[in-house]
């Protein structure tokens, strides 16, 4: 892991990076996952039990994206995505939907933060919640059934400032 990505987390509230993440995350969750996300002050007691997904990206910028979703929220998001009752879902289905959410959210954020940049995203992987703060940019959201946290750490890349 690049050294720069191990720095302490920073919450930007609703300005700058925070505003972009809030807008993009809300759009992704509402459009494809039928959930309303509201930016909120960070509270991380739930993170040790979260479903956490890690995505590496490289190209014009290089770094890592992390998505953490509270377990009940993960089931609710997966149910909305697949059109099933949460009780019908298997753990595997819920995890696969959160992996897909991470892929879509990371891609949408990259397109918004660095439009027209040549970036490739690695396959999303389930990760340990202990890595949830690796990014220097971080935002938390509340959904009807719980919390979501998004972190991005940028180290360098072909054209990164």
């Amino acid at each position: 892991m690049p050294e720069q990505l191990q720095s302490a987390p920073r919450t930007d509230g609703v300005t700058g990076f925070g505003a972009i993440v809030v807008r993009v995350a809300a759009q992704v969750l509402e459009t494809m996952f039928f959930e309303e996300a509201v930016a909120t002050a960070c509270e991380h007691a739930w993170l040790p039990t979260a479903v956490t997904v890690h995505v590496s990206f490289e190209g014009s910028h290089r770094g890592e994206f992390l998505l953490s979703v509270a377990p009940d929220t993960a089931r609710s998001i997966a149910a909305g995505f697949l059109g099933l009752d949460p009780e019908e879902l298997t753990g595997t289905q819920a995890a696969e939907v959160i992996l897909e959410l991470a892929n879509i959210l990371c891609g949408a954020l990259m397109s918004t933060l660095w439009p027209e940049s040549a970036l490739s995203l690695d396959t999303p992987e389930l990760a340990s919640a202990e890595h949830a703060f690796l990014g220097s940019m971080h935002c938390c959201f509340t959904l009807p059934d719980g919390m979501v946290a998004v972190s991005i750490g940028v180290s360098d890349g072909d054209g990164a400032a």
Partner: protein
Amino acid sequence: MPISVMIVDDSAVMRGFIRRVLTLAGFEVSECLEASNGEEALTGLEGHSVDVILTDINMPKMNGEELLRRLEMDARLRSVPTLVISTDATKARILKMLSLGAQGYITKPFSPEALREELERVLGEKYA
């Protein structure tokens, strides 16, 4: 008018979502074939004819770019409209896929309405 589709995506839940969104968008789907990569899609299309192919780009074994190349080389399949569904929103990528033969391109996230609009454009008004 019912449509038959081939959905190509390495994510099973994404294929399920697209299948669901087709219905939410108002399409009557008469047949829905699925494949997890381009290779499987070509195999699945050997004995079948579909009205439209919906494909992801980044997939193992055979990605969406290679699938489009293979479709263009096939006299029977080259006339089947192909719609690319991807997280990549860059102009370079969109133009590349269109140049390889895709008739449409939609970026994730997308709504049922957006998929309907793009599919209607690709398929023509007779399927509306």
